[in-house]
């Protein structure tokens, strides 16, 4: 375990040193602070727009860091041959990957926490100063819940990035594969709703079959997306929350185990 932790520490430091990390963090910082001013262009409940921009900005931040850095950092090790330094030591390859995973998760949470902190402060400020007849109720604890599940989603995305990095030697290929999976995963629920609505009646059963296969196979990321719940204060039941949590954890663990398996068999040149 000690080795895993030390690899995680190195990964965290390495990620922090990436300039892109800082760049994205600054960009999202501006976005979050500016969200209230953008929302002012809308009508009525402008706080809803502030929350939308804030939570989406956080999602974007996490997405970028988890997908980009997970594929980038492993490929860099392979490319610069630093991987040989690691595997020549008494460390199993799965320990290396697990260390990378933990380091990246910690990095993502670190960035998201900064973003969330800025978001809550801005939201609170605009909530207190909003020029509205009826000051809307804001479900603060559901925002915290959404933040926790956002982290979980990002861990799943890190696992996806590591899974693709375990067999692809190019960071770009692994990145685009992960992005592809993310895109499908976050749209599964949307496609399902469209297919079940009136618009889906004319779609051939072949395409529906393909979709059902995809629905089973790909990670359903919208299960971990509680943005709408937080913004509209929708009711939540504990059992569905628990099931979503288990879903996220099991999918992440499975992906990591597959990645370990492939990485063990891989030949380094």
């Amino acid at each position, binding site marked *: 375990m000690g080795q895993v932790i030390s690899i995680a520490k190195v990964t965290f430091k390495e990620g922090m040193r990436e300039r892109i990390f800082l760049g994205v963090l600054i960009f999202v910082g501006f976005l979050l602070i500016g969200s209230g001013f953008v929302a002012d262009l*809308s*009508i009525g409940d402008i706080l809803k727009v502030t929350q*939308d*921009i804030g939570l*989406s900005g956080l999602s974007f931040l996490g997405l970028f860091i988890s997908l980009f850095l997970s594929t980038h950092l492993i490929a860099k090790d392979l490319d610069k041959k630093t991987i040989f330094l690691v595997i020549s030591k008494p460390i199993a390859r799965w320990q290396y990957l697990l260390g990378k995973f933990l380091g990246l998760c910690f990095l993502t949470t670190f960035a998201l926490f900064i973003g969330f902190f800025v978001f809550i402060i801005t939201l609170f400020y605009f909530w207190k100063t909003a020029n*509205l*007849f009826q000051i809307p109720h804001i479900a603060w604890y559901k925002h915290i819940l959404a933040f926790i599940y956002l982290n979980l989603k990002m861990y799943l995305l890190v696992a996806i990035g590591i899974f693709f990095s375990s067999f692809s030697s190019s960071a770009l290929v692994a990145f685009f594969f992960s992005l592809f999976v993310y*895109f499908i995963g976050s749209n599964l629920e*949307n496609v399902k709703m469209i297919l079940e609505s009136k618009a889906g009646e004319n779609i051939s059963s072949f395409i529906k079959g393909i979709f059902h296969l995809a629905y089973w196979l790909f990670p359903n990321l919208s299960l971990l997306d509680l943005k709408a719940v937080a913004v*509209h204060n929708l009711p939540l039941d504990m059992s569905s929350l628990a099931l979503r949590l288990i879903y996220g954890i099991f999918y992440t663990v499975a992906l990591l185990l597959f990645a370990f398996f492939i990485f063990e068999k891989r030949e380094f040149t």
Partner: protein
Amino acid sequence: MRLIIGLICIFISLWINATLKSNFRQWALSPLPRPEVARLLSGEFTALGSDYFLMKAAIFYGGEEGLTKAESLWLSKALYLTSYLDPYYFEPYWMAGSILPWEGRIQEAKNILKQGLIYLPQNWQIPFYLGFVSFYFEKNYKEAARYFLRASKLPGAPSYLPLLAARLAVKGNETKMAIIFLQEQLKRFKDIKIRTQLEKRLNTLKIILFLEEAVKKYQQRYRRLPSDLNELVDKKIIPALPLDPYGGRFYLTKEGRVWSTSNLR
């Protein structure tokens, strides 16, 4: 030398950008994506898409004086798109209820509001709007009474609603109803952009109510309807015929109601 050429190039492009006139109507009325496509393209960020199109609709409506048929169609589609992307968002329902029927888009407004009944079942304003549309625009008093009753049972509903539902049987209260309705809608928003339009409508309706009451006085006195509104001035019931803020001319319908040639658009 290279630096100078570079500076010239950037200057020319900045100048071109500044001289090209951007057209507000063109920007605002740009074609809308199909709702399903918009939903797929926005992935987990559907709420942002919803905010964007509502913002566009609000900016567009606030900057216009009277809509053409194509424009009101665009507005109804934009509001539908907004409510489709984020069905829990109240503002598109508010806009659909308070703007679309007045622009002649009654069915479109009802479709959007009916979706709101499903997603926001605890909101009293959505059945209230639906009831008003049935009452004022469709003259379907039974349906209107049903919607008002439904609204009156929800939390936060004003205490006069059950009374209103009961009074629906009495004909001839349309203008008073419309005034109550608009005042209720104005309670929600402070935005100047849309308020000015609603306040203009409210003021016009108040003038209509004033004229209708004058007609009633005339009826009590002479036991018949005046042949036109000028007769009210001739018999000194009102000092002068007020002007329609929309630029139309007030006239008397056969049923004794007052309306304007502008249709309040």
